């Protein structure tokens, strides 16, 4: 009798413990992200509505005017950043998709691991140094420019460094691994038997690819595009090292506003405008690719 009466309580505590376990596992990491990611973003929103100057300090005044001024002064850099980042993303997809496809379907396990390792390895050389290295490869008296002039791709005083092409090529180069890795993950998950079924049912190779492989790879294409496009929008290393002020992107403006001019409200407002642009772009892109649950399956 006593046992019978106690058991509902026990059951409950066990169930409660079952519910508690995931939160215990998630807790520490989630706390870290809340304190050092979410809170700073909220704080940034607060800073963006302040007015003042670096000498006397900044006060909170609901200064929405900063946003208007920021768009007025820097819309050129915004549009340029989005244009460069979008171009680089498309290039990354063109370069990265066949590689990810080869690694996922054609390569033997050892080869596959080697390819993935080689995709990550350049990170250890530091992107700054690799970009400096591109500077050296593309510079005006270098071998590449000389050959390009020989074959007439460049005029006699044509240059590669300090041009839009160089900046876009640099961004493509730097973010290519971020496209390849999610593409690989989504391709590898595809059940090959589905493709075989399609070809057994008289689909041509091209049809099987278009109607089976590609739709199943969409989450990877979406995730890879986000992981390339979004960081690329905020990039400033490539524009700083491979471009001139004529190619300066919004990242360059935010960085100098924040670290050198110490105009914190404008830097914060620019950050939020950039994020808004990106969120709208991502939503449109998700619509374009057409799956409602794309975001969920991508993450």
């Amino acid at each position, binding site marked *: 009798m006593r046992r019978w009466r106690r058991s509902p309580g026990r059951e409950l505590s066990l169930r409660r413990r079952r519910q508690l376990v995931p939160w215990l596992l998630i807790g520490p990491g989630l706390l870290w992200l809340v304190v050092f990611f979410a809170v700073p973003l909220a704080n940034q929103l607060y800073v963006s509505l302040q007015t003042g100057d670096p000498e006397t300090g900044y006060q909170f005044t609901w200064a929405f005017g900063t946003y208007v001024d920021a768009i007025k002064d820097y819309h050129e850099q915004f549009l340029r950043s989005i244009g460069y980042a979008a171009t680089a993303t498309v290039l990354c997809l063109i370069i990265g998709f066949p590689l990810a496809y080869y690694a996922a379907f054609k390569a033997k396990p050892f080869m596959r691991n080697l390819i993935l390792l080689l995709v990550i390895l350049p990170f250890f050389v530091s992107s*700054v140094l690799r970009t400096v*290295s*591109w500077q050296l490869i593309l510079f005006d008296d270098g071998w590449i420019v000389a050959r390009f002039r020989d074959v007439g791709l460049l005029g006699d005083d044509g240059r590669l460094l300090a041009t839009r092409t160089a900046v876009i090529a640099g961004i493509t180069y730097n973010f290519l691994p971020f496209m390849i890795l999610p593409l690989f*993950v989504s391709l590898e998950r595809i059940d090959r038997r589905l493709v075989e079924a399609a070809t057994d049912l008289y689909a041509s190779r091209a049809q099987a690819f278009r109607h089976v492989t590609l739709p199943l790879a969409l989450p990877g294409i979406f995730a890879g595009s986000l992981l390339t496009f979004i960081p690329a929008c*905020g990039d400033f290393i490539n524009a700083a090292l491979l471009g001139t002020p004529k190619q300066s992107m919004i*990242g360059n403006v935010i960085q100098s506003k924040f670290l050198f001019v110490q105009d914190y409200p404008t830097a914060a407002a620019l950050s939020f405008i950039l994020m808004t642009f*990106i969120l709208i772009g991502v939503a449109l892109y998700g619509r374009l690719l057409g799956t409602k649950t794309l975001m969920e399956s991508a993450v």
Partner: protein
Amino acid sequence: MRTRADQIRGWLLGAWTGLALLYLFIPVFVIAAFSFNDNQGRFNFTWQGFTLKHWQDPFADPDLALAMKNSLLIAGISTLIAVVLGTFMALALVRYSFRGRSTTDLFVFLPLATPEVVLGASLLALFLTMAVTTGFATIVVAHVMFTISYVVVTVKARLEGMDRHIEEAAMDLGASEWTAIRKITLPMIAPGVLAAALLAAAISVDDYVITSFNAGQTTTFPLFIFGATRQGVPPAVNVLATGLVLVILLLLALNVVVQRRLAARDRAAMP
């Protein structure tokens, strides 16, 4: 049923893969080559002859040596923290259904979907508001923050491809939840965790943008290089960068050899 067209397709894909990898490695080769350049003066821009002199004492510049040491320490500490926190998060997100799971999933993805310049600037703004002095510790904090999400995504991918029944079998046989995780799940996802650690360390060593905001007086390897671009990057930088890649390749090769030995031993032990 491999036709000739299939074969050609395979070759073309392989060739494209090779070219794409070459594209990724061209600057790395140039960096390695110029670590052997007998350059005159400050600039290391044109090839002037082969020398080994830069390899004799790459740590001669104390600032550079310190920057490298900082980078490796920061990568080590932040990778360790991020891998532990991230692996637990991935476990919970894949293995349990609970209220708020999809929201948490999305939230973990958000730092990846935020430009680094925004992450770096907002974190610095917080540190300024809280009057925290930026330096080594704040760099670690920042690196853990932006590498956790990579760990979660990588480990999750591994967990999702894993057979859940083995764990359930262990628990049916009386193992507690924690024992099942420790003895079954963790060993099975170990390759995924290793890959996540490699990725986190790579991204940490590589990072310039977020670090530049939160470094204070501390210098890391990328910060040192960026600072040196104006006066010409010294060849010792090329030596250290090349050396780091070689060391990592060596460690990974060692790992492969050890894994194979272990696998061979296991096979031999089986009746």
